[in-house]
């Protein structure tokens, strides 16, 4: 994808997003690698910062947008064609998410080199508005994850399960041709998340 083309869609979101997105990491540190951080609170924060490499990856942020339109691509531009969240986060009448997205990633054959596949999952939809992450600091996202008002009314054990087992979350590591996966693996991410919870779920500074 080319900047010139993508910039057409949304300058405001791009600016906000790039201000808070960390550099893309390809791997995740394991829980063991944080053993050297002796202070438990500091270790917890450090592990959440590692978790943040996933949370703030475009694969995750694109469907946790502010407002009613998802983003797409590594540079997180407004989804094109234009689509809307709709009442249940599954799109609107006549233009649901699954009008285009299937239950699995679909390879595109013989078309644009920019669009190698259309992503998909049986539950393909947007995170609800209260789970918007785009433009937020990692500290803010951290507080959001612990807040049942803004995390889908989940307890921490449920959150651990969600991060480690949910297959829509897992899509981030198998995003289809032409898309960079989230760093590490879902299993490693789940372990880190659990370790963060087990160490007190301390948040980085907002």
């Amino acid at each position: 994808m080319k900047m010139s083309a993508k910039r057409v869609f949304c300058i405001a979101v791009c600016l906000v997003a790039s201000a808070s997105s960390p550099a893309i990491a390809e791997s995740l540190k394991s829980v063991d690698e944080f053993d050297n951080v002796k202070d438990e609170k500091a270790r917890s924060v450090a592990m959440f910062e590692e978790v943040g490499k996933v949370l703030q990856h475009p694969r995750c942020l694109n469907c946790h947008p502010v407002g009613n339109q998802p983003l797409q691509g590594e540079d997180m531009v407004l989804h094109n064609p234009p689509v809307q969240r709709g009442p249940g986060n599954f799109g609107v009448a006549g233009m649901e998410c699954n009008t285009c997205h299937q239950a699995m990633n679909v390879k595109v054959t013989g078309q644009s080199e920019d669009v190698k596949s259309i992503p998909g999952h049986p539950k393909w939809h947007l995170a609800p508005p209260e789970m918007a992450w785009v433009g937020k600091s990692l500290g803010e996202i951290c507080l959001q994850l612990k807040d049942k008002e803004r995390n889908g009314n989940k307890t921490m054990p449920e959150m651990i399960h969600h991060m480690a087992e949910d297959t829509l979350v897992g899509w981030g590591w198998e995003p289809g041709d032409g898309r960079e996966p989230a760093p590490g693996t879902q299993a490693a991410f789940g372990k880190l998340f659990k370790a963060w919870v087990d160490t007190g779920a301390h948040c980085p500074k907002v």
Partner: protein
Amino acid sequence: MLSFTLNGEKTTFDGDPDTPLLWVIRDANHLTGTKYGCGIAQCGACTVHVNGMSKRACVTPISTCEGSQITTIESVDGREAKAVQAAWKSLDVPQCGYCQSGQIMSAVALLKQKPSPSDEDIDNAMDGNICRCATYQRIRKAIHDAAKEMEASA
């Protein structure tokens, strides 16, 4: 061998299961009202209904259609379709006409869920259907007219 129902008829396909529904409809079944325009779900010219919901046939592998009810422009029916097609004719909506099968299929899908859509509902439902002749103003009016007609005849 995949089986599905195409415009009410039991149909099978034994080719490459990755084949997009679009080419199964067009090349294998010779139903040509459903159009190719982009191949990447950008333009909506290939819109059909799968189990009553609008689908972009160009990015729907036939492997996902096992047992599905597929309806194309050639046999779309019911009060929404009748009202939409009548309004399209009465306003002379099409110019080149190539995108209009997709426009009509999207409009029918919208009206099935929202019998009296607002302008915003129309924007949201129809933004995925490109018309290079830019007949959008008449499409919008035709959808409103179809909604009124449906209400009057209800």
